[in-house]
């Protein structure tokens, strides 16, 4: 969670512009209220949807980095505070857990010409969200530093450690690795990535019983700890923004960072030309001799609230179709790995594509995954600070998860 989003706790700022009516929208009535995450791609999508504002319809947008902490409460209200919400593998599940979003099959049949099949998120035959981009954490590396250290592009986390050792011993950098290890959601996400890379499974098959306290879990934690030894000592306070800033300042040679940041570190802003030209992307590294990248695949899209009038839902769907049109994507090629048909690939998107080609797994869409993710995010800090053993940390995660899962009725 970053600084700006904390400010947003005090008062989320709804951005309501009023641009001229857009002839191609075909919306003449209804209220469209969008809440979305705040990063370059979501800004582009919502700015396009805003063009439908006016001409009898109203479109408002709230961009908020903490949208996922707000949407469940906002969509529970009747009528819902927002007619549509940004959704991802994990946030769609949280909305579906409380049955807060509606199936979109009819709208897709009526107004969904031009949606690629891969954009439809279907659950039990119902389209529950329309995806517009793919995202994954993958390797960012500095070509010049790796060359100076005499190492190749790391393909596995053992290579990453060897490269870090070489960089440090040659005195090129004190802390060659960075990671989004901030206690909380970020740290939980790194655990999820690394554990999947080790081939682990989170739950006993078909149940909500946790199953992470095993040899794979221990190996996962030990690898995270080994990596953290090459990170800036403040690593438990670093989120994506902090890692991006360290990268642009030239303090880091390797990191496993979000594909949605790849454009930002090569956009000619906030860094030097020398650092930007040597910033390269590759698939997320593999772990423990496995072949799948230790990362999770994510899609970002939109889901539509259940607690709104059908007229508003229809207007909302149309506005989203405008927002995520292939034309919008073609005008913003460099901002994301768009899923729409006919959009040329972007140069900075190679890391996400390589990670997906390496058959990394999508982030698990399970009702109780969020509870385990949260438990891992809060219980792992003790282990990384050297206060307890890996086995104890895993037992703590399971115990914290069980308490939360019992309260949510999962166990």
């Amino acid at each position, binding site marked *: 969670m970053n600084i700006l989003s904390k400010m947003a706790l*005090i008062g989320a700022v709804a951005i309501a512009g009023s641009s001229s009516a857009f002839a191609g929208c075909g919306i003449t009535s209804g209220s469209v209220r969008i809440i979305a995450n705040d990063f370059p791609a979501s800004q582009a999508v919502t700015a396009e949807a805003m063009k439908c504002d006016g001409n009898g319809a109203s479109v408002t947008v709230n961009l908020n980095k903490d949208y996922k902490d707000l949407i469940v409460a906002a969509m529970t209200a009747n009528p819902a505070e927002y007619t549509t919400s940004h959704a991802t593998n994990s946030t769609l599940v949280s909305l579906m857990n409380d049955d807060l979003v509606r199936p979109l099959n009819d709208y897709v049949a009526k107004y969904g010409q031009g949606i690629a099949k*891969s954009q439809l998120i279907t659950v039990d035959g119902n389209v529950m969200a329309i995806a517009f981009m793919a995202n994954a954490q993958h390797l960012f590396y500095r070509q010049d530093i790796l060359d100076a250290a005499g190492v190749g592009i790391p393909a596995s986390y053992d290579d990453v450690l060897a490269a870090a050792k070489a960089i440090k011993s040659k005195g090129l950098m004190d802390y060659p690795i960075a990671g989004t290890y*901030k206690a909380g959601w970020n740290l939980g996400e790194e655990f999820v990535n690394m554990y999947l890379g080790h081939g682990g499974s989170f739950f006993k098959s078909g149940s909500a019983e946790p199953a992470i306290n095993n040899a794979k879990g221990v190996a996962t934690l030990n690898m995270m700890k080994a990596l953290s030894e090459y990170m800036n000592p403040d690593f438990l306070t670093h989120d994506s923004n902090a890692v991006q800033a360290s990268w642009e300042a030239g303090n880091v040679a390797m990191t496993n960072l979000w594909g949605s940041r790849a454009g930002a570190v090569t956009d000619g802003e906030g860094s030097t030309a020398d650092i930007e030209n040597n910033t390269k992307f590759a698939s997320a590294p593999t772990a423990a001799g496995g072949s799948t990248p230790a990362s999770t*695949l994510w899609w970002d899209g939109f889901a539509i609230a259940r607690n709104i009038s059908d007229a508003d839902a229809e207007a909302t769907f149309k506005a989203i179709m405008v927002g995520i049109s292939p034309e919008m994507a073609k005008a913003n090629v460099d901002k994301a790995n768009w899923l729409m048909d006919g959009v040329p690939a972007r140069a900075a998107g190679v890391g996400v594509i390589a990670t997906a080609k390496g058959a990394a797994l999508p982030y698990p869409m399970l*009702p109780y995954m*969020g509870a385990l993710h949260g438990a891992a995010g809060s219980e792992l800090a003790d282990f990384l600070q050297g206060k307890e053993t890996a086995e104890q940390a895993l037992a703590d995660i399971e115990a914290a998860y069980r*308490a939360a899962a019992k*309260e949510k009725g999962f166990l």
Partner: protein
Amino acid sequence: MPHRTFMSFIWPSALAMLLFIALPIVSVAVQSLFVAHEQVFVAVENCGPFGCTTVQKIDPQATAALREAQPLGQFNGLGTYLNRNHLASAEISQAWDSRTGVGEFISKVLNLPFYKALSFTLTYTFVVTPFVIILGFFVALAVNRLPSFFKGPTIFVSLLPMIVTPLVGSLILFWMIDADGVIGGTLQLIFDNPDLSLKASPTLTWITLIVYGVWHSAPFSFIVFYAGLQTVPQDTLESAMVDGANRWEQVRYVIVPHLLPLVVFISLMQLMDNFRVFEPIISFSAEASATSLSWIIYNDLRGTDGNILFGSAAATSLLTIIGVCILLTPVLIRTWRAHGARA
């Protein structure tokens, strides 16, 4: 004041307190006794850009029917209070039965989230409160001796830490203590240790938060003491001087006894405020090293990906209220007795 006048004077605020403080607390207490219904799962096929998988999903119809029948959820009694994420009764008794030594038992207890948070909360409360009182007192004495020309500006500057919003004040400091920031960089130079980081170790994080707490709250006690100093009886001071009391003795035998009731007042306020420490933990991103009871409530209410734990947050809220009551009891008893003596 006749009772009637008193009642007519107090009823609007009493009503407001009942409606906006007492009733919500009752509602929170009720919620803390319930947990969600058992979720009914169905296995469904889930398809997206990365292929199809079979996953578990909550069956909305079945769950909705359960919710209709019992909107509050399942009655759980004190279960939420006693589970691992709160008082952890089972874990504590197990740790006690299998203990190998007192230190080992304590470390096991402090590994539990509630007690980890409680340990920081209490440390913060009992370190910050006396420091705030002492620092505020000496600043007030110093300002009181200034020539009147300087008094106004000095008072204004001294109040700044309290005027700055806690979230913003602590955020500014968080940036300043970064290794690339002015305070962090200076400390590295002073200690000649390029790896020194106030954010890295739990001990240094605690110290940072406590220093921030003192810096932020000292103006409050300063201004209260400064107001009190204006009421010190001058003739008593003069007679003390005639009797040959030096400046320190004047402070000790005249000023301190005169200001003692204010110490009680500031202690009350500070104990309450510091026990609810929250903003600096957020701004300093200190969750890894220091958590507080208020932070646990916030974390449960924020949830991870929509897993909001209302019952947990409600239980922690009530435990916090109980904690504040326990903390204030000695001070309140003291005040009560003092009043009784006067009556």
